[in-house]
């Protein structure tokens, strides 16, 4: 009887130690709560979320309008050609299937940059709200990434020179400010890479359509 009590006690203690050890290990992992961010990081996050929510809100309003167009066409006995064409234009411009004209920035980048610097720049621009980007005339679609091929940087199989022109459509001031902020992309380039960058804002730039085939061959739509 006493032996059983001893075993049961040891079992309970071992179980408790195990649970505590798991808890301790988990607490040593990265604290994922928002409270682990500094005030500056939280402010940056708030700014990003606010901008994103404005975009989402606009997007939702536009979609509601498209639905109304379809409903109206249905009520009036008309075909749905107009809303369908508008939707096709919108989606094609978004994905890179068609070119885009608009406001934005023009960047000239020259120096010993590597593919990582180019890919980081694309992420910086997208995070700052760029809606369409091209690098040396190559439209950056979802899968367009800079890689090192045969000693030169390539995007979608096309080589880049030592000097590249980057066009980004979006808020000209917003894009420029995001790149030039202290600790931002330009500061990083100046600190770690021997590269020269100039940025000018523009009221009218044209980003071309992609030459990449975007239609998947293996991924099929879920019915």
């Amino acid at each position, binding site marked *: 009887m006493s032996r059983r009590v001893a075993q049961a006690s040891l079992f309970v203690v071992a179980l408790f130690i195990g649970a505590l050890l798991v808890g301790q290990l988990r607490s040593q992992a990265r604290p994922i709560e928002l409270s682990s961010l500094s005030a500056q990081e939280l402010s940056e996050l708030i700014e990003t979320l606010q901008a994103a929510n404005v975009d989402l809100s606009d997007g939702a309003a536009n979609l509601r309008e498209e639905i109304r167009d379809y409903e109206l066409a249905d009520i009036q006995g008309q075909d749905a050609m107009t809303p369908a064409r508008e939707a096709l234009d919108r989606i094609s411009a978004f*994905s890179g299937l068609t070119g885009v004209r608009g406001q934005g920035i023009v960047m000239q980048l020259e120096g010993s940059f590597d593919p990582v610097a180019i890919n980081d720049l694309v992420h910086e621009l997208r995070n700052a709200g760029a809606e369409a980007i091209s690098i040396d005339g190559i439209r950056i679609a979802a899968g367009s990434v800079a890689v090192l091929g045969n000693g030169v940087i390539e995007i979608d199989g096309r080589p880049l020179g030592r000097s590249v022109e980057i066009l980004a459509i979006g808020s000209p001031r917003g894009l420029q400010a995001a790149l030039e902020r202290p600790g931002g992309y330009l500061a990083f380039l100046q600190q770690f890479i021997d590269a020269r960058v100039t940025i000018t804002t523009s009221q009218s730039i044209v980003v071309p359509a992609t030459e990449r085939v975007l239609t998947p061959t293996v991924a099929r739509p879920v019915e």
Partner: protein
Amino acid sequence: MTRRLPPRKRFSRPAWAVSVGIGLAVIGFIAAAQWNSSLGRQEFVTSAQRVLVSEVQQLQRQQEQLRAEIADAEHRLAEFQEASEGSQTALARLNEQLAAARLAAGLTDVRGPGVVIEIADSLRPVPEGERPTDYIVLVDDLRDIMTALWASGAEAITIAGGSTDGVAANAERIVATTSIYGVGSSILVNTAFLSPPFRIEAIGPEGLHDRFLAHPSFLGRVAQRIEVFGLQFASEPRDELTLPAFVGTTQLRWGAPLADEPEASPEPDE
């Protein structure tokens, strides 16, 4: 006849009492360590931060609501487009183009063979004098994995965070406007705040997994960090994966689709 109990050799009362005592001492030590570490984190949160955290949470709730609204609207639009199919030849053709454009843009759920990758923070204790950030998954790791996957032929990719049960409930589809962005040690994908472990799923042609593991964008930085700092990493090919569509705005605010017109060179502001 009386039976005599055998002598207790292994578990005499003092012996197990000592074991339990040691066990309780260990529990006390661990509990104290855990209490101290949680106190440390709590002290870090100032009242100003609490206000900011509350604002972030409110914005995240708002974002979830907007994304649900957009997903619903996209679904309704797709229904309209399917319903009107076949009513006219021209309209049917337009709707086919629309379906193809939605597929190319990442606005359709897709299915196919591919790879699953999981990456999480290191479980190794950070040695004194070393940077704790070396032992956690950074935005660069996810960007490098993304780059290696696209360059290896991936056709569709999602990133999910915080999921360890194989269900990518919060998976973010990577599209033309997706940024993978770091705020401190946290990571935003499509403006969604994701936390480790990260689960990346990609659909692509046969050999995607092997090409990914051999790609310089993977080997260059992230593979070395896995090796040196013990980031948790696993990957495997899969016969069938289903990736959700992108949920977000596809409307351009600063640009418009280019009609069939000659291309113009940039006109800098005065």
